[in-house]
């Protein structure tokens, strides 16, 4: 470990010690989490999980742990009637929708959940393994709060939106944390928007723990639109119960450096994970997605379908890993990674990995990386469309397949409009 990084971990330790007196009953759990982070440290370039994403710049920076303030926050209009706002990792009820959440949903903060006897070990759990265990541990150590969302058994509440904002004009870090529990037989949709501007360098280190009960369905709509100077690292840990379904609709549009690690555990029979999404790495953005699905029980199903675009000096990484463990017979796993390079300098590294240790399964995977089809471009131009219109139509068609799966109309519209605007600028800038 080089000296700069050691110094940087000392900086995190200092932040932890400053916050320690406020931790109360959680102090021991948080201290253990911090030591786990200190032990793992920042990844080196030799770390396979960080092969294409260097955290050197992040490791060398010192970030201030943002504490409570009343900085005004500019938010986009809400996509659903009920919105919760988290600023710099803290719940800010006064910025969200007043009144009760939709019927069937209970929302609690860390203290209230603790008073209700929720075990701290569950609220501040550190998921094991993967490239982001270190950061999930850091989050458990430093998160100022936890938003606990419970969907009641059999309930189908109206969708809610959670806006997670990063603010401030100084280089700050925040550690937002969610725990979502969809009880047996429930059906819920949750929109998760990460937003931030370019006013400062930021380190956002988010964790979402998701537990989908038996026969429950949970849709998570994730929109990443952080500023260009941000480091955004996120860990989503999902476990799915018998015949339960977890669906991720992911739209990664912005972050200086973005990394998502999603781990889905299909440990109950006939549980399902559908992970679909898109990323647009233009400018000098670097977007890295690591999906990991474990098939551990009979009749489990998973789908990974991601589409990525890179342009300019943008770079993207997609790593989709699916493991069908012994005994997970009759399982189905499908993986698709399709990627489009709009300009010569851009780069996408994609690696679908399928490991199968059961013999009666249906699995397939495929990955492609290429440019817009010249024959299709010529066809459209031969009908009178300008080169720009033709490129735009083909690029929208490329992402359209994933956007059309986003079965929440306002969310899909926001994603589509944001993509269109960005692509229009991109294509205009091209000769």
């Amino acid at each position, binding site marked *: 470990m080089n000296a700069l990084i050691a110094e940087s971990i000392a900086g995190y330790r200092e932040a932890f010690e400053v916050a320690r007196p406020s931790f109360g009953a959680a102090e021991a759990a948080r201290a253990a989490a911090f030591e786990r982070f200190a032990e793992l440290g920042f990844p080196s370039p030799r770390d396979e999980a960080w092969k294409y994403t260097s955290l050197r710049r992040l490791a060398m920076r010192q970030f201030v742990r943002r504490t409570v303030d009343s900085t005004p926050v500019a938010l986009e209009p809400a996509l659903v009637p009920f919105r919760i706002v988290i600023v710099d990792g803290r719940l800010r009820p006064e910025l969200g929708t007043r009144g009760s959440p939709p019927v069937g949903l209970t929302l609690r903060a860390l203290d209230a959940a603790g008073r209700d006897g929720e075990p701290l070990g569950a609220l501040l759990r550190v998921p094991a393994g993967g490239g982001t265990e270190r950061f999930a541990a850091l989050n458990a150590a430093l998160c100022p709060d936890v938003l606990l969302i419970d969907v009641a058994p059999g309930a189908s509440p109206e969708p809610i939106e959670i806006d997670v904002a990063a603010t401030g004009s100084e280089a700050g870090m925040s550690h937002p944390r969610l725990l979502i529990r969809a009880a047996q037989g429930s059906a819920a949709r949750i929109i998760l928007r990460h937003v931030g501007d370019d006013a400062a360098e930021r380190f956002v280190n988010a964790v979402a723990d998701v537990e989908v009960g038996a026969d429950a369905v949970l849709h998570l709509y994730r929109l990443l639109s952080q500023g260009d100077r941000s480091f955004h690292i996120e860990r989503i840990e999902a476990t799915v119960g018998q015949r339960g379904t977890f669906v991720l609709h992911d739209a990664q549009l912005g972050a200086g450096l973005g990394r998502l690690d999603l781990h889905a555990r299909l440990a109950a029979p006939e549980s399902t994970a559908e992970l679909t999404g898109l990323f647009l790495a233009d400018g000098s953005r670097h977007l890295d997605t690591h999906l990991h699905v474990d098939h551990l029980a009979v009749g489990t199903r998973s789908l990974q379908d991601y589409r990525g675009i890179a342009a300019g000096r943008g770079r993207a990484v997609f790593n989709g890993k699916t493991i069908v463990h012994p005994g997970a017979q009759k399982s189905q796993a499908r993986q698709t990674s399709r990627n489009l390079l709009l300009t010569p300098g851009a780069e996408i590294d994609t690696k679908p990995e399928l490991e199968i240790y059961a013999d009666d399964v249906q699995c397939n995977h495929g990955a492609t990386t290429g440019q817009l089809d010249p024959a299709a471009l*010529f066809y459209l131009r031969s009908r009178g469309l300008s080169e720009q219109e033709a490129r735009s139509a083909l690029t929208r068609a490329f992402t359209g*397949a994933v956007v059309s799966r986003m079965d929440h109309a306002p969310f899909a519209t926001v994603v589509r409009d944001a993509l269109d605007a960005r692509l229009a600028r991109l294509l205009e800038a091209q000769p």
Partner: protein
Amino acid sequence: MLSIRDLHAQIGTRKILKGLDLEVRAGEVHAIMGPNGSGKSTLASVLAGRAGYEVTAGTVEYLGRDLLEMAPEERARAGVFLAFQYPVEIPGVNNTYLLKAALNAVRKHRGEAELDAFEFLAMIREKMKLMQMDESFLGRGVNEGFSGGEKKRNEILQMAVLEPRLAVLDETDSGLDIDALRVVANGVNSLRGPDRAIVLVTHYQRLLDYIEPDFVHVLSDGRILKSGDKSLALELERRGYDWVRQEAQVA
């Protein structure tokens, strides 16, 4: 309208057109026939501006302009239309979107206002009826999952919508059964008029039973060896292409 002089074109180092001359006036229908590999499709591609074809000599003048200097979309807007031999499937780009974007591009170029949604739909419906196409085509991706015959009909539908001045049909008859051939020919015939010229590139005489050409040209080894009226097509059907080549060698 179209004046091709001494056109030489190649793909890579392979010379395909070797001094082709052709004169097409408004109102005329020309058939260009020839054996496989004679350069028929290359001619169509060069006229539409497909990349990968290098014109090494000669000129192509279209309505007084240097066609070869124009980008593919400029040619389309100026009234040149190519019906593709192999129309491209473009999943995710909707047929209606393409028809509308193409029509608006052409109308804008002509200084005409864009059609509103109702006018557009009424017009499309009428043309689709002519081509015996089902309305479900509109909601589908361009040529996506279309059969060979559907693709060819879709080409002629686009042509009917765009109303070009010069239409080049590249082997539009290939792969069509007799019913589809009739529908396609019907569509093409409905577009015949004094202001419009049509160039049919075809391997077989069959299409010419339905679309009667004013002129028939035999293309072989990159040049037009013989021109005549529609009776030439019948003679080719009977005697094949070899006698034209032998005649040309003697001359």
